[in-house]
């Protein structure tokens, strides 16, 4: 459970220390409010806490400009990198909700239903976020596509 939470947090934040801070806060908060947990899936519950904590964290960082929500703004591409870095870079271009959906479904293997519960939105919203996230990441990974500018 904890290794998977760490993986999700790492991909979500793209920073190992911030990710582990998030996991720690998640666990502490979960333990602290265990009595508030009225059945259900513990795994989903932990991912929910982590997702919300990260949202709060990002809100507190709002003074920083958002991380390149559009590919066209991705002006800091610095040459060729391995596939791992590319996927991380592509993730960084997603807005938070889309990144979260993408990771929960594709990396953590959650069902749409679980993701809908975690994000507190209808399944339809999960699916549209997922579709947009996939299209966006695909475009980001595929520098050859004429519709996109690859900044060198």
């Amino acid at each position, binding site marked *: 459970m904890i290794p998977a939470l760490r993986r999700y947090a790492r991909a979500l934040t793209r920073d190992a220390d911030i990710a582990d801070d998030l996991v720690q806060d998640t666990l502490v908060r979960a*333990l602290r409010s265990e009595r508030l947990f009225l059945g259900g899936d513990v795994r989903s519950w932990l991912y929910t806490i982590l997702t919300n904590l990260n949202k709060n964290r990002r809100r507190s960082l709002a003074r920083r400009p958002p991380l390149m929500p559009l590919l066209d703004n991705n002006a800091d591409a610095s040459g060729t990198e391995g*596939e791992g870095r590319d996927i991380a870079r592509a993730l960084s271009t997603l807005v938070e909700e889309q990144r979260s959906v993408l990771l929960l479904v594709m990396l953590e293997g959650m069902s749409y239903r679980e993701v809908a519960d975690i994000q507190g939105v209808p399944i339809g919203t999960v699916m549209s976020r997922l579709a947009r996230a*996939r299209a966006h990441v695909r475009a980001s*990974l595929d520098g050859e596509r004429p519709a996109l500018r690859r900044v060198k």
Partner: protein
Amino acid sequence: MTDPKIPVTEDELHAYVDNELPAERRGDVEAWLAAHPDEAERVQSWRAMAEALHARYDSVLDEAVPKRLEIERLVRQPRRWVYGAIAATLAAFVAGGGVGWIARGVAAAPSTFQSFTLDALDAHRLYVVEVRHPVEVPGSERDHLQQWLTKRCGWDVRAPELAGLKLVGGRLLPGPSGPASFLMYESTSGERFTVYTAKAETEATQMRYSLQGGDGALFWADRGVAYVVSGGSDRRRLTQVAQAVYDQMEKSGG
């Protein structure tokens, strides 16, 4: 199955890749993809994307979990305790995460904390030195002691069971705003701890530590009752005792 009648939607393509599609529809989608190479390529790219994600992040699963994330470590702080009390102690422990602690309830006004703590420490100093008459009702009459104090004080007074400590007994005291109950415990080595409770204005507070003249006290309030656990200057030891008291009050009151 080369010409499925029902058109395949974008949602269905995603559901297909994510194994969310009803089994009976999979054949249709596969047939449709066979006839639409561009779409098939797109679906394939999603699979590659998932592989890239796993290739990039699965190594985290094999890393040793850092000590600070070990659940045993975190559990060692009992939950309710963690929730409300010794926020200060834990602040250093959690502060790194940038998520502030929300203390349970508002901190008591300094005057409440001070007056209760001073009264409790006065009683503590006055009675712990007594050899022959430290208490009015001896610990051997625990049931009677609890009933009597409960009746006089007006809330459920329980003498907690504290590991390694024997209940010497208790007495009734005048408190800041009415009667106060006073319980004394003793270790085999003669170390004494007292538990002072009195009605408080505040519903609940976080824990406060105070050290005065070599005697330490931990104060908190819960459900309108203030608690002060007093003992020696060993803060760690005092915290252990206070924690045990806190936990048992939680259980009995819950």
